[in-house]
């Protein structure tokens, strides 16, 4: 451990702003990529579900038996 106290750790010997900006930006970019991939997956699933629902709806309009 290079630091004796929490204040010292946050101050980073006067370079705190730059160090924490960098690590913060790194965290944001990583989280963004993870979340964006997740959202893309959910959107893709939703698109397939919508498509299926439309298909089901158009093929069973006369039977009027909706499953949902």
């Amino acid at each position, binding site marked *: 451990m290079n630091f004796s106290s929490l204040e010292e*750790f946050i101050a*980073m010997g006067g370079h705190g702003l730059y160090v924490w900006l*960098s690590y913060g*930006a*790194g965290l944001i970019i990583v989280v963004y*990529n993870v979340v964006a*991939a997740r959202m893309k997956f959910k959107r*893709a699933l939703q698109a397939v579900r919508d498509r299926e629902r439309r298909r089901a709806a158009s093929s069973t309009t006369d039977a009027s038996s909706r499953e949902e």
Partner: protein
Amino acid sequence: MRLKELWHRLGSPRWFFQISGPLRWVLGGLALVLLLVGSIWGLAFAPVDYQQGNSVRIMYVHVPAAIVAQSVYMLMGAAGLVLLVWRMKMADIVLATAVPFGLTMTALALFTGAAWGKPTWGAWWVWDARTTSVLVMLFLYIGLYALRQAIPRAETAGRACAVLALVGTINIPIIKYSVDWWLTLHQGASFRLTEAPTMPPEMWAPLAINVLGVYCLFGANLLGRMRAEIIEREQGTQWVRELIAGRRSAGEPG
């Protein structure tokens, strides 16, 4: 013989979707552990640089981001070649999904480079060999992104981007070499941010861990995005419909 079989299988989105499910979690878990260990080590335990003080800790973010950004571009060049020569569907999907990660990592490398430059050189921006190369890389990524946006048909866009990525990949070494030479012309030998050979092991160990971690993160992230893209493109096929039906009956929310 086995290799050829694997090659053929890689061409099948369905097979890829099945094996990538668990693989994604393995890579994601590895990435989480490695990045946590590397970053905490770099932030709190790695030694202080005698010239740069604590600002040297920015290296543990900057260098992995810059390295992975460059590798992603090279990967896209390779995917472009595979797509143009063998017309493999999966290569097209890699090409379409790798751009956001590479672009954001390039932006991160630029930002952290600026934040490192301010305490080290006294300026947010210095035309150093590495920062300049990263800036050019950013423009290459933006070009790929813009070309894809400009072409309406996905298949055409994929192949056009393949040509561009390939030409860009051929050019990257030349660009790097020319930028290095340009620097000696205008600046002379100056203080470089990191000199790998002079780095003590307590410094390059966390760096290596973070580099490995960010590669694993890229792998997991790329697989995740590719899986989404596969579902999107194959949405009319039987196996995707069955997959969705299975997910719904199992009560899993996506």
